[in-house]
């Protein structure tokens, strides 16, 4: 076929003429989209590209016409940036891995923590180092979890152990399970987070049981041809005052930010099962459960659950009562502190305490930028407010528009009712 473009002047004329009865038909024939109502670009009679500026762009959220030259956004119906990036990530499947890299994430609160994601990024580096013989990342997860994005975090194989004996604080049963993993698949590397959430304890137990000398507090990994494993690591020691450069051992306990988390690929997270049931063993440590601690005694910066009050709170008695019933640590915005309703050390925000709560309930707080900075690290933010347009509502995962006093009263009633039912059932 020849490369010469054959033009049909009549069809081009019809394509330009929106009133022509065959206009749409011809447009489709010429391969131009009619999504915007008219063709925005076509070749003129002398071979020049002609543009119709009225046909490009879209109407923005404020009713103003916007033209996006990058061509990414084509109007409101594009589904947002999140949806498009998730779909466009290339999916990686490793059918027959040459070796396994085992990772045991902390899963605090049933989700992968930032530390876990960094560790999975490190595991990916180890697994993908040689493209000819790719390894697979195996995540061993204990107990019930709420995570559904293991694939996005870089997990190829997922071993989920939800037996009752590994639930709660059961280091010996978990250690038994990890030894079973070692016997079943013999991973080339073991990676655990060096964190207080359980990874540091379990990792050291595993090292003692396997007889491996681990590297603890690892924060850097470099390829090194001279080392037996092909890698060299830098580990913190002596209470954080020394760096040890050493060949990488089989078992690593790594610090947070040891590697970049996986962001560009999507992995299979294929479920695995242990070939045999977990070995029964005598539990020498018995877990009697968590002890109720006084939430007011927990430092604001490390409290897990904060109920915070702002200018919108009128019934302070009710607020303190709600905090007590919910078992939440009390916080406050700057206005509430300045007005003398709360103590200065309860202030949340850039000028007060930067909090790291998992759940932050903001009652009557409009969300000044300093306050929003202070709650950046919070996972779930709940807002109770009268004003539906305030900044806190935009930040919140769940916002209830209404009178905070009444909502808190209803919430206290619900919690007390649930406790009563539980007591009656027991």
């Amino acid at each position, binding site marked *: 076929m020849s490369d010469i473009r054959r033009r049909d002047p009549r069809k081009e004329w019809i394509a330009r003429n929106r009133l022509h009865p065959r206009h749409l038909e011809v447009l489709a024939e010429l391969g131009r989209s009619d999504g915007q109502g008219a063709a925005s670009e076509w070749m003129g009679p002398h071979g020049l590209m002609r543009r119709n500026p009225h046909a490009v762009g879209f109407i923005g959220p404020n009713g103003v016409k916007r033209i996006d*030259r*990058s061509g990414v956004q084509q109007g409101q119906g594009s589904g947002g940036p*999140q949806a498009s990036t998730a779909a466009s990530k290339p999916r990686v499947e490793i059918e027959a891995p040459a070796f396994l890299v085992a990772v045991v994430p902390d899963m605090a*609160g049933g989700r992968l923590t930032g530390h876990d994601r960094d560790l999975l990024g490190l595991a990916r580096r180890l697994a993908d180092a040689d493209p000819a013989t790719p390894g697979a990342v195996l995540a061993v997860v204990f107990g019930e979890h709420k995570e559904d994005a293991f694939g996005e975090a870089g997990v190829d194989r997922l071993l989920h152990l939800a037996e009752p004996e590994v639930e709660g*604080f059961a280091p*010996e049963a978990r250690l038994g399970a990890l030894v079973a993993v070692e016997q079943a698949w013999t991973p080339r590397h073991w990676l655990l987070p060096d964190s*207080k959430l359980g990874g*540091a*304890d379990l990792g*050291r*137990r595993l090292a003692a049981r396997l007889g491996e*000398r681990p590297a*603890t507090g690892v924060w850097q990994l470099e390829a090194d041809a001279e080392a037996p494993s092909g890698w060299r690591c830098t580990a913190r*020691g*002596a*209470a954080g*005052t*020394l*760096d*040890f*450069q*050493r060949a990488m051992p089989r078992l690593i306990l790594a610090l947070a*930010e040891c590697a970049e988390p996986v*962001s*560009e690929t999507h992995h299979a997270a294929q479920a695995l099962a242990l070939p045999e049931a977990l070995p029964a063993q005598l539990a*020498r*440590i*018995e*877990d009697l*459960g*968590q*002890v109720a601690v006084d939430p007011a005694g*927990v*430092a604001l910066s*490390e409290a*897990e*659950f904060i109920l915070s009050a702002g200018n919108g709170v009128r019934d302070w008695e009710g607020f303190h009562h709600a905090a007590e019933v*919910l*078992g939440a640590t009390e916080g406050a915005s700057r206005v509430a502190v300045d007005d003398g309703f709360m103590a200065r050390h309860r202030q949340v925000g850039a000028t007060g305490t930067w909090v790291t709560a*998992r*759940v932050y309930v903001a009652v009557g707080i409009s969300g000044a930028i300093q306050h929003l900075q202070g709650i*950046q690290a919070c*996972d779930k*933010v709940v807002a*109770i407010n009268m004003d*539906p347009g305030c900044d806190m*509502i*935009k*930040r*919140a995962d*769940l*916002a*209830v*528009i*209404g009178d905070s006093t009444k*909502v808190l009263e*209803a*919430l206290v*009633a*619900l919690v007390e009712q649930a406790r009563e039912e539980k007591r009656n059932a027991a």
Partner: protein
Amino acid sequence: MRPDTHDKGRLAVTVLVSVGRHPLTGRGRRADQDARGVELARALADAEVELLHAGRLDAGSEAALRGYLGMGFEALSLLEQPAGADVLPALAEALEAAGPQLVIAGEQAEQGEGSGLLPYLLAERLGWPLVSGLAAVEGVSQGVATLLQALPRGQRRRLKVRLPAIVTVDVAAPAPRQSAYGPARRGRLDVQAAPVVPDDDLARWQAQPARKRPKRLKIVKAASARDRFKAAAAKAEGGGGQVLTDITPEQGAEAIFKLLKEEGVLR
């Protein structure tokens, strides 16, 4: 080894102590976590507490070890070890011979590798259970100890452990008392010979003062200038949050209650 002189009724407790390092001056001192362990042992009712250290005895370490004696002890057992030795065999043999019911140690040393592995290796070698991050010992009865373990975010967990056991303490344990000068001067350091095993691995590694870790950069992976601009100018927003308008307070409370329940923060 020491003769077994424990009374039958009293709980035999051994605290493993090490020589710490002051973070600013670099001088030897009581290691903070070990001192907390000693404080924990002192607070135990009806317990016979012994101090055990494996390491060198020189001018710097003697001052630090006397700091522990100043917390109210007459003697400290010292297993003589050269620098760069693996203290595990010496400690394991001493503990096997003495046979304490409870061994308390700090979580990580302030000098040397500081990997925090020693209690775990001891537990594995002696076949004892181990509990880390202890906040308090609530009671000991009939060979079972009730312990309070510190969890992150100020939470506590109660555990029952069969003795003999090894426990480690970190900063959640009670702060140590001040060391008194007189008892520290008067206390004895019982130096004992112990098997010496050199730590060859540690000698092979390169140690250097800790470098400051590089700050993580915010990496923007954007294909176009428009995306980069949007990422740079973005406001911190949750995005996709659920907003409930025109509802009764009961419905609102119901939604919040469901979320709190899902997150597991209600007890």
